């Protein structure tokens, strides 16, 4: 039986009130959702809260999921992304970075993001000595603007295709590709700058 069919059956059972089916859904997707939340929100604590919120929302709106309209994974990712947007708007980061849904201005490339975003991390030399490379990349990822961050997370960490990402982010595929490229390049610049400071 195909994965999509299995999930569709699980959803039907779950809507009918089968608790074991819901447990199966949670078992299947909690890891993936937690990872998206962790990479976007930056901390494990926030990621845990957000993942819980995602599942609560899923549980309440599961009956609205239409198998014909798209993959369950895309639906779940859309819910996750929307909650992350809400969380981001509520959080303090809203003041220093751009909103997720704001249209990019014509002059957005005039100043590199590394200069636009305030570096609040501890001294680079300290972090390089004490942290693993993965943590460095994770820290740098938090400095990307949310629109670039979510694009690279979905593409490079969740291996979603451009079409699905476009659906989740509700933007054209060309915009998705452009954001991914800018996000990757910006991340590399941030990491190069960090390493240069260390050297």
């Amino acid at each position, binding site marked *: 039986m195909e994965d999509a069919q299995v999930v569709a059956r699980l959803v039907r059972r779950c809507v009918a009130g089968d608790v074991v089916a*819901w447990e199966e859904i949670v078992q299947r997707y909690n890891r993936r959702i*937690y990872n998206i939340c962790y990479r976007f929100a930056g901390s494990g604590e926030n990621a845990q809260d957000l993942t*819980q919120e995602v*599942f609560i929302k899923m549980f309440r709106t599961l009956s609205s999921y239409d198998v014909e309209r798209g993959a369950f994974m895309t639906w779940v990712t859309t819910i996750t992304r929307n909650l992350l947007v809400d969380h981001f708007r509520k959080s303090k980061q809203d003041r220093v970075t751009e909103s997720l849904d704001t249209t990019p201005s014509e002059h957005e490339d005039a100043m590199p993001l590394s200069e636009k975003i305030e570096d609040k991390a501890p001294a680079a030399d300290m972090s390089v000595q004490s942290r693993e490379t993965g943590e460095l990349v994770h820290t740098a990822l938090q400095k990307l603007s949310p629109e670039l961050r979510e694009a690279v997370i979905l593409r490079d960490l969740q291996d979603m295709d451009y079409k699905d990402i476009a659906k989740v982010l509700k933007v054209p595929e060309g915009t998705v*590709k452009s954001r991914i490229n800018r996000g*990757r390049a910006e991340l*590399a610049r941030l990491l190069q700058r960090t390493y240069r400071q260390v050297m």
Partner: protein
Amino acid sequence: MAGEPKNGLQCAEFDALLNEALDATLTGPKLESFKAHARVCAVCGPLFAEADAGRRWLKSLAEVEPPVTLMHNILVATTGYESQRVAVRAKGEASWADPITGWLRPVFAPVLSMSRQPRFAMSFGMAFFSLSISLSLAGVKVSDVRHVDLRPSAIKRTYYETTGRVVKYYENIRFVYEIESRVREFKKVTAPAVPTPKEQNKEKKDNNTSGQPEPRQERNYSQGENQPVLASLPNDPPVGTVTTYRRLS
């Protein structure tokens, strides 16, 4: 200049092909002109390199493991139903010490990382070695520590016993005894001569400022036996009455 066609490819086209090139789905003449443009263009070349580096960095990130209690919490929050399977797993894998360890880890991480350095590890090893040798020489056995009675009365008794033992031991040392006797002898030699009783009496007399008559001497010691007696009083002198009048003005 950006936007100018280089190797038959404009910068905008290069940008559009960037994803395909990085995903390795670009082939044939398009790939060749893409590579040629990247080599020549001062804007697109570094952009390609940076995007590639960024993609590699992101791919190096490993998937993080969600907390063991997450699934249990989700199920309780959504259905209120606590799955036995999940609960057992969560209980088995998480302990009460986990959050405490999570708090303490960042605090002690620098100390731990420093202590793991070979030079510090060597120092700790030497210190432990020295301590264990010292304790062995002093006759302290680690197994004895288990039997120590920690009740207040027992601690008090132990304290007095130990103090008494130490004092006794100290005073019985031959060397200390000899030193003490030498010090006593030295004090005896260097101390001023002890005054005679006569001088002491004289001093007493001189110092008598009370106005009271001196007690009668039974014998005149200053008088020699062959010295002539010039005058003397009878043993019982006449008693006269003396009246004193106090002026009451």
